[in-house]
């Protein structure tokens, strides 16, 4: 087995994660390899330092409020979804009613009615086309989870 293989086992050895067989094989190699033996010492010292490093815990208030912050975000998310859906529905309904009244209005000329209808249909086609394109590329975008 090459030194490279034993270097991986070296990690298992210093972390006390090797089984008896691998441990025996590793120790056998270290006894006969000065380079691995010296490297083992370096990594042992490094582990000693890193094991002694601890991160400070934030004040208790942070932990007490932790869940409520999450709950509020979830609740707000639901609120935004409801607001958006209902807003869109009301806008569509209002728009539909306005167009209906506009069409039924005898004082408005046929030319204006046709032009307005054409405008609405044009905007709708553009909107659907852009939406479809976005959805198509979003589904195939490998980096969609990467925040830009």
């Amino acid at each position, binding site marked *: 087995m090459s030194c490279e293989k034993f270097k991986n086992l070296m990690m298992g050895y210093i*972390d006390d994660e090797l089984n008896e067989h691998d441990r025996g094989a590793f120790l056998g190699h270290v006894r006969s390899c000065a380079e691995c033996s010296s490297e083992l010492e370096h990594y042992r010292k490094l582990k000693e330092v890193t094991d002694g*490093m601890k991160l400070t*815990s934030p004040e208790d208030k942070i932990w007490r409020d932790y869940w409520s912050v999450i*709950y509020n975000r979830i609740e707000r998310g639901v609120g935004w979804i409801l607001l958006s859906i209902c807003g869109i529905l009301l806008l569509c309904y209002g728009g539909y009613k306005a167009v209906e009244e506009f069409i039924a209005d005898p004082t408005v000329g046929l030319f204006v009615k046709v032009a307005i209808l054409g405008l609405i249909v044009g905007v709708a086609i553009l909107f659907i086309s852009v939406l479809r394109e976005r959805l198509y590329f979003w589904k195939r975008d490998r980096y969609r989870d990467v925040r830009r």
Partner: protein
Amino acid sequence: MNRAMDDETHFVVRWRKGETKAFEFLVKKYMRKAYFIALGLVGQHDVALDLSQEAFVRVYRHRRKFDPNRRFFPWFYQILKNLCFNWLREQRANPRIALEDLSERVEREELSLSFDPNLMVERDAVKDRVWKAISSLKPRDREIIILRHFQNLTYREIAEVLSCSQGTVMSRLYYARRALRQKLEQHTEVE
């Protein structure tokens, strides 16, 4: 399966049905672990707190995608890690360089050195140097160091959260520690 796992499975089932009380249990069980992992990856208290909470919010929203045959934490960990890595990527892409640094040439790699050394419980010159070296590691290397040394996870646990074999864990630890050693040597030379 031990009793703690049975309890967790019970809460996971209830959470997937949308019960916020069950989700609260899972949040309270893992909030510290989530915060400290994020802290190890991004090195700033406020950001770590925000990202760890955001990870829980996303987990709640995507609960239907959770495979009930898997354990909760490894799945949660993937979401948290992605959020942290994305944040780090964003920082590298749009660095906020302090005005006083504008006159100097700031290396992109060095921009990751914004880890606050005051986040450590006990400080000394050696630990400060190691912390600085850890903060300048590639996120992938830093990740495994954090899981092993700051979370004290066993190889089996690390393999589970990273969805890889224990052999891969050993190999990744070797390359990460080697990189850490090289960084420490570089920093010593500079000083």
